[in-house]
């Protein structure tokens, strides 16, 4: 029997996707979608690109509407506490929801600076964040300092540079995006930044901000001062799971799940009727011993489809079918260069360069661990990715079968 009332907490990609998938798969019970932001559900990848550039607004990045699907959408409603014992969810407005099944889809938030910051220091995770930073970039004499050259920081620096704003990009590692895609591709990205006039400062970090009340720049660990009218902190993301502390769910940053996305309790057993999806979850993958956290757009979509199947799996129908082996994918657009990736490059111990052509804006790198293919990244060469996909799926399937046979 499927649950009578399913509550999905989090109304971004993974949450709305789960709610839609439940209806598409035939769930006809009560369905509530709770989101903490005031806006109707929207897609986040454009925030650091077209939204920041002013090319798109909320209407252009809306997620497919949930209207007409019999979904009770509650925006501006942050979840504050989950009680497993009596199956309730507390919201910030003091109200309480009873549930028969619950899906945690509260995503992630920008990692904050560990001390109070002056005005003009931003993070970028929400539509309101993107609008606020856009206003800064449009101001006369704007100068942007971006702290952290991961995907988000690198994209935002590229967007600002293309708007004609002077940009300094500070990164603790020796190359941008190196933790995610390695030093070869990181070197490629570094050259794109420098060609565009971005002052890239690597191997150093930010020591402190300057300016009283309103930021005027920052002092780096090497003692130099970088002037700026605005600062973007792009220090990574933290799963939005603080509201689950003390709930009894096993947390390792994100909610620790089994391969179906079912939440685990602190004793490692499956919690009945509670799932987690997207950035708020971590789950096993054949290439890791424990669980893996991927902040990928594609993972959120896949998790949503699996979650709906699990929730609607009839009791008495036997074991849940094994979920398909996912081939993760992610992308990044900078300076008109389309980086596209499959697999798990960040787990590799070796990168092999197939093509490296900065003037031609083309790149193809494969990633290996113990000699085995685990990922691939291309720039403006998506055509070449397709051939790698079945190879990666096979490799991951073999790994899973081998692990199961142990």
């Amino acid at each position, binding site marked *: 029997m499927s649950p009578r009332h399913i509550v999905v907490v989090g109304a971004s990609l993974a949450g709305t996707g789960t709610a839609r998938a439940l209806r598409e798969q035939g769930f006809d019970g009560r369905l509530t979608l709770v989101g903490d932001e005031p806006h109707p559900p929207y897609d986040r990848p454009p925030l650091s690109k077209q939204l920041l550039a002013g090319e798109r607004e909320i209407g252009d990045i809306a997620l497919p509407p949930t209207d007409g699907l019999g979904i009770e959408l509650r925006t501006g409603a942050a979840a504050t506490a989950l009680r497993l014992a009596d199956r309730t969810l507390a919201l910030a407005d003091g109200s309480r929801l009873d549930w028969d099944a619950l899906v945690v889809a509260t995503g992630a938030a920008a990692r904050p600076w560990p001390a109070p910051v002056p005005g003009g220091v931003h993070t970028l995770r929400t539509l309101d964040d993107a609008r606020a930073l856009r206003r800064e970039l449009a101001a006369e004499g704007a100068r942007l300092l971006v702290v952290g050259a991961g995907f988000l920081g690198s994209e935002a620096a590229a967007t600002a540079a293309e708007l004609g704003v002077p940009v300094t990009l500070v990164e603790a590692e020796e190359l941008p995006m190196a933790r995610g895609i390695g030093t070869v591709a990181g070197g490629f990205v570094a050259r794109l930044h420098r060609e565009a006039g971005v002052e890239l400062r690597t191997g150093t970090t930010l020591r402190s901000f300057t300016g009283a009340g309103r930021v005027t720049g920052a002092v780096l660990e090497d003692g130099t001062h970088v002037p700026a009218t605005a600062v973007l902190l792009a220090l990574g993301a933290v799963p939005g799971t603080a509201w689950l502390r003390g709930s009894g769910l096993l947390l390792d940053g994100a909610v620790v799940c089994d391969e179906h996305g079912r939440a685990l309790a602190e004793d490692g057993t499956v919690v009945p009727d509670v799932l987690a999806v997207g950035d708020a979850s971590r789950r096993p993958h054949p290439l890791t011993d424990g669980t893996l956290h991927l902040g990928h757009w594609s993972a959120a979509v896949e998790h949503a489809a699996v979650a709906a199947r699990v929730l609607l799996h009839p009791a008495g129908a036997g074991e849940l079918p094994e979920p398909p082996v996912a081939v993760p*994918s992610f992308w990044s657009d900078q300076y008109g260069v389309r980086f596209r990736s499959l697999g798990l490059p960040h787990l590799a111990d070796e990168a092999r360069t197939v093509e490296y052509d900065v003037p031609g804006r083309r790149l193809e790198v494969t990633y290996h661990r113990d000699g085995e293919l685990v990922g691939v990244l291309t720039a403006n060469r998506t055509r070449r990715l397709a051939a790698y996909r079945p190879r990666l799926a096979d490799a991951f399937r073999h790994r899973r079968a081998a692990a199961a046979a142990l």
Partner: protein
Amino acid sequence: MRIHVDMNRCESHGQCVFAAPEHFSFDEDDNLLVVEDVPADEAVRAAVREAAAACPVRAVTLHTDGTAA
């Protein structure tokens, strides 16, 4: 069933090519090539639906008799 791709939205993510290579492919410069007419074969249609659903920029829409499917 007919496929429509909004080329102003397409960013060459390739998810449609992975899902339904019979209907989606790239030329040498990553421009998407589409075989728009989908035969009445349920396996092919399922693959095309998956392709539309996987598009990160929702550039792929499906139409039956002139209406969105």
